[in-house]
């Protein structure tokens, strides 16, 4: 502890504390109680979009990575093309393409408008979830490709020699070791995914960023909502980093 608590750090922390106190006392926070329910709802939207798209994206990324690492060419080529296109274009463009493009295409078909899905397809969040999921899958497909390739051949050959069926090899040997290798990268990618979520506000999904924009438009208070927003995102980032550190520690590691 003594190595960490050096004199200059004490001074810096005092300065930070003064800054926090100053912003708490002299900036305007009187809008907070009025918008608190909305802020909680926005926070909830941000969190579930992050969790759902990360999980679905990961589910898509495993076959994408597997196809590129070990698949025949007719599976590897489309997977590589998908990852290249997703990684080569801005997420905002993909989001707008899906929302405005599909959103203007669907109403032209009467059978879509009459189907039970229409009340859902008319809203914005399915497009947000779809775009963020595809984006996460594209980036993670590339990560998983490297991770699948990084598993030592001997492990797979030993499993084959034991007479394991191919699906069992994937489930018991290949996938766990690949995920273990990819975990540090996946933590960073999840933070990047969190940082991508405010883009859904541009297609009218009410996440926490959209709520703060609304506060700005309603009250003409510029900095305070943005500062609060930065604080919220830093807290979520901290939680993600801690969560992945915990996960990494749970995986037993032999250090040679």
């Amino acid at each position, binding site marked *: 502890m003594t190595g960490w608590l*050096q004199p*200059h*750090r004490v001074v*810096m922390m005092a300065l930070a504390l003064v800054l926090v106190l100053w912003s708490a006392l002299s900036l305007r926070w009187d809008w907070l109680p009025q918008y608190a329910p909305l802020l909680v709802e926005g926070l909830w939207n941000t969190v579930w979009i992050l969790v759902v798209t990360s999980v679905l994206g990961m589910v898509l990324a495993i076959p994408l990575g597997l196809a590129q690492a070990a698949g025949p060419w007719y599976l590897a080529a489309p997977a590589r093309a998908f990852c*290249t*296109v997703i*990684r*080569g*274009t*801005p*997420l*905002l*463009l*993909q989001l*707008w*393409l899906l929302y*405005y*493009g599909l959103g*203007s*295409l669907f109403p032209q078909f009467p059978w879509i408008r009459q189907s039970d899905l229409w009340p859902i397809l008319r809203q914005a969040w399915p497009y947000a979830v779809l775009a963020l999921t595809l984006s996460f899958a594209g980036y993670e497909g590339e990560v998983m490709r490297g991770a699948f390739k990084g598993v030592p051949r001997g492990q797979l050959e030993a499993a084959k020699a034991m007479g394991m069926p191919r699906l069992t090899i994937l489930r018991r040997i290949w996938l766990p070791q690949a995920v273990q290798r990819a975990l540090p990268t996946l933590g960073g990618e999840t*933070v990047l995914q*969190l*940082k*991508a*979520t*405010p*883009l859904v506000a*541009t297609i009218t999904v009410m996440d926490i*960023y959209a709520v703060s924009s609304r506060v700005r438009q309603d009250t003409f208070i*510029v*900095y305070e909502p*943005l*500062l609060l*927003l*930065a604080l919220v*995102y*830093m807290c979520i*980032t*901290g939680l993600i980093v801690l969560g992945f550190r915990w996960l990494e520690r749970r995986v037993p590691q032999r250090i040679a």
Partner: protein
Amino acid sequence: MEGLITASGLGPALDLLALSPPGWGGNLLRGLVNSMQIALGAFGLGLLIGLLGAYGKLYGGPVIRDLLAVYTTIVRAVPELILILILYFAVTDALNQFLVAQGYGRIQISGVVAGIAVLGVVQGAYATEVLRGAILAVPAGQIEAARAFGMPPLMLARRITLPAMLAFALPGLANLWLIATKDTALLAVVGFGELTLETRQAAGSTKAYFTFFVAAGLLYLLISLISGRVFGWLERRARRGEPGAGGGGR
């Protein structure tokens, strides 16, 4: 050829993408030029900040190191969109207050300058980490040997550290450059006329959403594919003379 285009149903789409005014191709290309300007400027500024930051983190005093740690942590934890808004409002506001206090009139910061400054600060945080890692990968013996010869620090950086670290830094820098080109799209949200915003305007006025968004996507894809080639070539050049892996210089 004409018949083929008409038969495939691409005719109307190509008319929309024509370069002269009834078509919107010119607007898209203008947006692309704006995007590239900002990406280049931000990448350059980011490299400069990153270089200073990396040296500060490695050789600076304890205060500088901690301040840089705060900078890289905050910038990498907060979404770019929010940093753009904060910096855009705050920098414009602070500059205007300063100018008014000095007795000058208010100015309006141009979108290009603001975009470069904001994305440059964001890129700088990532570049600091990339370059720090690359400098650490340079064998310590080479730097010590240069010191033993009595090389002044700047010459050491120019002749030994920077060339030797380039091969290690290039993959990370290539990634950063791609992030820079894609992050320019975020400036559409603050209303700057780069490629994505021009595309949305074109798509909104013609209702041909798919045509324009796919066209813009192809432009972005083209940029990233060309950049991949260029950085691959640069890395092969930087690695020439290295034994074994590296792929080039044989």
